[in-house]
């Protein structure tokens, strides 16, 4: 590259000759040179900017094109990933604690009609009415011949029915795939499982949704694709549940009861091993709820959870346990039991106007089921502490069990808790709770004194709850309950080898318009076995039982609920793996402070 000299000799000499300043020439040349350098630099910078611009343009074009491509392309499932989501079932199974199936899915078909495609609507209607007894030809025909383009006929079909419909050969009758819920054990544990229905329905698929029980309570879990079909494991034991339901049904028939409920619960973990309510229903064909009359007469009604009853003398043990816990009495303290007891305008009497007084030991108050003795203890405890204790046992709240219906079964409490309510609540009147409440409370006071929350889910380990009564009080309570069976009102409850301990309760049923029936009772037996090493709590409740083998009809729990409970223990204890044992001497269990 040739450079222009800053001081070209020719021009300098000429300038000198003319008398001009030669430095001006040099400055002029320097300026020109700088201008040239500036132009070059600008050109280079412009070139670089252009390259950068092209680069950015290309990058954005690629991103834009990719976005457009993604937006325009047809979505496709990733075929190379391990297990496609279409393989897993739509709704997870429900199994018992040993993995036996309680609810599963079955792929079937639904039946619908497209009347415009029909060749012989009259013949099709007649043939369908012949296959399905619940369909009427007269009702189908107007649907097929009217203006409708689409008619649902059946939501689910069995394969045999599908074949028969197929054999009609009518092109207007079409099938859509359906997944249906199957409860293979029929009516077993029906109140716990609940039932299913269809949510949003299309021709090619329908949503299966739970309508009651655990199906509804765990609807989200059962339908969650992230769980990948993991079954819901309940705490129930199918074998025990079947045995309990069978015996309870027999007992209900023998005792002429209108309904019955039983709860068997693990005394430590609160797992419900079996829970039955009779009459029951088949969840495969769930009946419709009653539109009039008392809902508690419907087979859908779960007496063990939804039924809140005055549970009678079974509550007496709570007053005794609390009095012992507070140090007011011990198992051998004599308390005033002189009947009848006057309180304001009320008079507290014993069963059939007996008088067990003037004094009874606390153990005998429970054994003889003395209302007066219990009332005296309750007055010693006082209203505030009694309410706190019953609240700690869970009687003021719905049970936390995982059933859709449970939160709606609130215990009925007196509106203003006065001293007379303290007295009546101590022997289980004026306060209504469900058998499940009672089971949890009995488990709490007999298992060593820690709070138990009932659950329907299988627990791998035990989480001890808050302490409600001390270990000693719990042992004394068990000894008292055991005495009720060995020499008290529940003598039919003794099962050799299993040391059943429990308390009977017979409460008159309240009339809907106030007051009580004379000849309608709720008989309850709340028990725990074995007494020296409590494992299970069993509550049996019979609704309006009458035992008629004697000269007079007998309605007390000792004659009705207790034999049923004893039979349940006799049958289920071996199945639960409990070996019959000779119980240790009961004296050692009674603590004397």
């Amino acid at each position, binding site marked *: 590259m040739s450079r222009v000299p800053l001081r070209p000799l020719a021009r300098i000499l000429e300038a000198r000759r003319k008398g001009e300043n030669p430095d001006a020439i040099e400055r002029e040349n320097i300026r020109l040179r700088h201008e040239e350098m500036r132009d070059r630099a600008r050109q280079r910078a412009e070139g670089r900017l252009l390259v950068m611009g092209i680069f950015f343009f290309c990058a954005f074009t690629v991103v834009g094109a990719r976005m457009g491509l993604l937006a325009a392309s047809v979505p496709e499932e990733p*075929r190379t990933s391990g297990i496609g989501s279409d393989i897993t079932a739509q709704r997870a199974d429900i199994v018992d604690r040993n993995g036996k199936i309680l609810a599963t899915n079955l*792929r079937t078909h639904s039946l619908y009609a497209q009347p415009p495609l029909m060749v012989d609507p009259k013949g099709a209607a007649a043939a369908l009415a012949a296959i399905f007894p619940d369909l009427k030809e007269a009702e189908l025909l107007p649907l097929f011949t009217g203006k409708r383009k689409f008619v649902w006929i059946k939501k689910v079909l069995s394969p045999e029915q599908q074949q028969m419909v197929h054999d009609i050969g009518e092109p207007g009758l079409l099938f859509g795939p359906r997944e249906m819920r199957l409860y293979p054990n029929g009516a077993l544990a029906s109140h716990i499982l609940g039932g299913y229905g269809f949510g949003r329905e299309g021709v090619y698929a329908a949503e299966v949704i739970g309508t009651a029980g655990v199906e509804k309570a765990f609807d989200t879990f059962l339908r969650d694709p992230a769980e990948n079909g993991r079954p819901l494991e309940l705490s129930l034991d199918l074998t025990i549940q079947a045995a309990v339901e069978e015996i309870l049904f027999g007992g209900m028939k023998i005792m002429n009861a209108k309904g019955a409920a039983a709860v068997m619960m693990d005394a430590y973990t609160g797992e419900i091993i079996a829970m039955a309510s009779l009459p029951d229903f088949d969840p495969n064909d769930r009946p419709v709820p009653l539109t009039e009359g008392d809902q508690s007469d419907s087979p859908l009604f779960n007496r063990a959870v939804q039924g809140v009853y005055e549970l009678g003398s079974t509550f007496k043990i709570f007053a005794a346990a609390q009095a012992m816990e507070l140090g007011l009495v011990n198992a051998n303290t004599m308390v005033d039991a002189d009947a009848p007891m006057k309180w304001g305008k009320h008079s507290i009497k014993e069963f059939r106007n007996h008088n067990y007084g003037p004094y009874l030991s606390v153990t005998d108050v429970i054994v003889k089921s003395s209302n007066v003795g219990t009332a005296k203890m309750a007055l010693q405890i006082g209203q505030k502490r009694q309410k706190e204790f019953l609240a700690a046992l869970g009687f003021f709240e719905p049970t936390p069990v995982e059933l859709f219906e449970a939160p709606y079964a609130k215990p009925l409490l007196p509106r203003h808790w006065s001293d007379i309510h303290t007295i009546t609540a101590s022997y289980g009147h004026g306060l209504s709770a469900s058998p499940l409440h009672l089971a949890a409370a009995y488990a709490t006071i007999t298992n060593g004194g820690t709070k138990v929350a009932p659950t329907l889910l299988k627990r791998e380990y035990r989480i001890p709850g808050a302490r409600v009564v001390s270990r000693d009080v719990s042992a004394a309570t068990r000894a008292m309950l055991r005495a009720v069976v060995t020499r008290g009102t529940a003598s039919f409850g003794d099962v050799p080898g299993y040391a059943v301990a429990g308390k009977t309760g017979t409460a008159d049923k309240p009339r809907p318009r106030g007051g009580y029936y004379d000849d309608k009772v709720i008989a309850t037996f709340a028990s725990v076995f074995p007494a020296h090493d409590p494992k299970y709590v069993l509550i049996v409740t019979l609704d309006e039982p009458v035992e008629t083998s004697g000269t007079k009809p007998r309605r007390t729990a000792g004659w009705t609920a207790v034999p049923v409970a004893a039979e349940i223990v006799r049958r289920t204890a071996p199945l639960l793996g409990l*070996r019959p044992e000779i119980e240790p001497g009961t004296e050692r269990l009674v603590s004397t402070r």
Partner: protein
Amino acid sequence: MRSFGFVLSILAVMGLAFWAYSENYKTQKALKDLSKLQHEIAALRDARAVLRAEWAYLNRPDRLRDLIGLNWQSLELVPLTPQQFGRVEQIAYPKPTLVEPVDVVGLQPEELLP
């Protein structure tokens, strides 16, 4: 030399194209096989679900109870009772196996060895 390089690179491009072509078809075949297998798995799972449901249905306690009643003559099954629990002490101790006695008097030590 330069033309030799051209020929070589053209051959390489052709070879790579052929390889990519065959790989493409192999991938498509593998994907097709996979979806076929997955359909098969889905069908088998469906069948298994039906069989499990049927097994549970056939083993429902009601039915077993009825079958026990019907077959009472041959099976004589009764519900489990507390008396049926046994103890380990009730099981007879296995008898020791007796060996034929051998007369060893007067034998040399090497003759005693087997």
